[in-house]
């Protein structure tokens, strides 16, 4: 997909409609396209009514967990005794995912409008948009858009601030992000208390992903029923979703489809399929933290929250990583384990030690020095890394290892038996 975005006929462009149009980035250009009308509409309503509309729409969090957005908003105290905060998670760092970046680069006002509507719904007077430190261009564009919209007076009393991260994947975890805003190391917090009770600065807080908030303005202008109608399979998965496709496909990029769309069609039709002479081997459908699918599972998978679970993985953030038959799955799983070892905040022993030893054992296997018991050792380690820590970073490291050994065991065995030459030096 190049820019300006020429959508494939099978795409449903709601969020990506103006990708590539520089004019849509400007305040005037956004207003010309109907922007900020939804905010005005929301402001005329009681906050509870806005929450109800978003509940009715079926919108679920697009950051990874898929939690119903309206329900999350409704957890905020009804009676306001303390300041309320909204945090916007723009710390997009999940390998395979690059959708929030495009929303901020091309339609910054869509995010700002969604942010202001959410702030109204949860009665927050301050919103922080936490942008990962490496996103220099999205940050500059957001700064400009925020300054323009602010001087046009569209936010009323609401204060929106941008907060730049400084290189830490873990700050995408909601409570780590709040610690990072507070000027602390990005260590996730033990829950409960949940953010709605005690979030950033100890105050009631709601945190939403960029793509989730960008979807809110059209829900208000076109109605909850219309949004709910956008669903190709499970009624529990509504609306459109941006899928970031990368790796071994002919045309990687962001594609927006209605939930329930077949993964096979996304890869072979919209993304142009594999490179000439190559066949699909594996696919990670929801960012690197979810289990790997083999070819058969990939080609029969429907892209919604329920469909991907049925195939043994998760929709996650919608970051689709594609591996063709040239990929060395052992090496790639080691690269992913190395990512998690690098990004572990090191609070929990299972994670700090588990991610590091998983990487070391995989490196040893790739160096031709693996031991026959290493696969069982990796599975045992993974077992102890799952469901036992403050956040899910450790589980995320285990997911590709466990699913990789299950589905591509012979590739591991080839290194262990010497059928395959070492590709690393011990």
């Amino acid at each position, binding site marked *: 997909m190049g820019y300006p975005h020429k959508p494939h006929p099978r795409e449903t462009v709601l969020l990506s409609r103006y990708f590539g149009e520089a004019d849509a980035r400007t305040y005037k250009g956004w207003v010309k396209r109907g922007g900020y009308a939804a905010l005005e509409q929301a402001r005329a309503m009681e906050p509870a009514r806005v929450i109800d509309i978003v509940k009715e729409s079926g919108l679920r969090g697009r950051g990874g967990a898929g939690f119903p957005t309206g329900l999350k908003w409704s957890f905020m105290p009804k009676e306001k005794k303390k*300041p309320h905060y909204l945090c916007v998670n723009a710390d997009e760092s999940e*390998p395979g995912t690059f959708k929030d970046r495009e929303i901020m680069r091309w339609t910054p006002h869509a995010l700002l409008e969604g942010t202001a509507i959410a702030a109204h719904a949860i009665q927050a007077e301050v919103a922080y948009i936490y942008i990962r430190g490496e996103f220099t261009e999205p940050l500059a564009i957001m700064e400009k858009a925020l300054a323009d919209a602010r001087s046009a007076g569209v936010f009323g009393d609401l204060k929106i601030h941008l907060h730049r991260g*400084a290189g830490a*994947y873990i700050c995408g975890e909601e409570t780590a992000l709040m610690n990072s805003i507070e*000027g602390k190391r990005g260590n996730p917090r033990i829950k409960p208390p949940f953010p709605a009770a005690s979030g950033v600065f100890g105050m009631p807080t709601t945190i939403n992903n960029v793509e989730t908030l960008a979807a809110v303005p059209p829900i208000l202008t076109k109605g909850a029923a219309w949004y709910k109608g956008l669903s190709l399979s499970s009624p529990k998965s509504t609306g459109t979703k941006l899928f970031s496709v990368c*790796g071994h496909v002919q045309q*990687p990029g962001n594609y927006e489809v209605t939930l329930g769309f077949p993964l096979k069609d996304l890869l072979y039709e919209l993304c142009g399929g594999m490179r000439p002479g190559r066949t699909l081997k594996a696919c990670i459908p929801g960012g690197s933290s979810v289990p790997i699918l083999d070819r058969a599972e990939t080609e029969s998978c429907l892209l919604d929250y329920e469909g991907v679970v049925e195939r043994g993985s998760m929709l996650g953030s919608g970051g689709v*990583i594609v591996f063709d038959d040239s990929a060395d799955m052992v090496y*790639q799983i080691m690269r992913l384990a190395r990512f998690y070892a690098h990004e572990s905040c090191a609070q929990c022993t299972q994670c700090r030690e588990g991610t590091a030893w998983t990487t070391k054992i995989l490196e040893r296997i790739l160096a031709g020095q693996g031991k026959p018991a290493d696969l069982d050792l990796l599975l045992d380690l993974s077992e102890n890394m799952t469901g036992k820590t403050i956040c899910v970073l450790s589980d995320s490291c285990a997911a590709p290892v466990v699913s990789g050994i299950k589905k591509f065991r012979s590739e591991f065995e080839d290194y262990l038996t010497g059928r395959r030459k070492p590709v690393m030096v011990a």
Partner: protein
Amino acid sequence: MSADAHTSQPAGTEEYQPVFTEQMLEQLQEILARYPTKQAALLPALWLVQRARGWISDRNMAEVAEVLGLTPAYVKGVVTFYTMYHQHPVGKHFVQVCTTSPCNICGAEAVVQALLAATGAKELGATSPDGKWTVIEVECLGACGFATPILVDDDFIESVTPDSVPEIVRKYK
């Protein structure tokens, strides 16, 4: 060894030039107004220091601590947590190359080699003899569909290949 040993302002021999004076102090005041606590201005304050000085020395950390009412040890704890803050001087141009799995399968390792060759930086993390370049490998830059992305200072460059590296390096010379 103190990190100051690497800089042009060795500890104890030259008078420390504070970062937060006049205009910088004004910028800091603006930042402080965004948060209910002084501590919350720490990450933005560290960004200001790094922009002004190129890296963050122990002396800089002590200054930030004083300005924000924190301890130097606390500030160091935060600086060392976040990978983008430099605790040592780096080359005039700082290059970050993504080599996480999606970029790896699209040839990121060849881009790393091409960058080391074109810049004269002999190994990852080392600065080239002319002081102009430091190249490091980083985990996911969040542009996986445009492999291989690199950051040269604050410039985000997509779809870099070994062939496009020499031209990129020439532009920054």
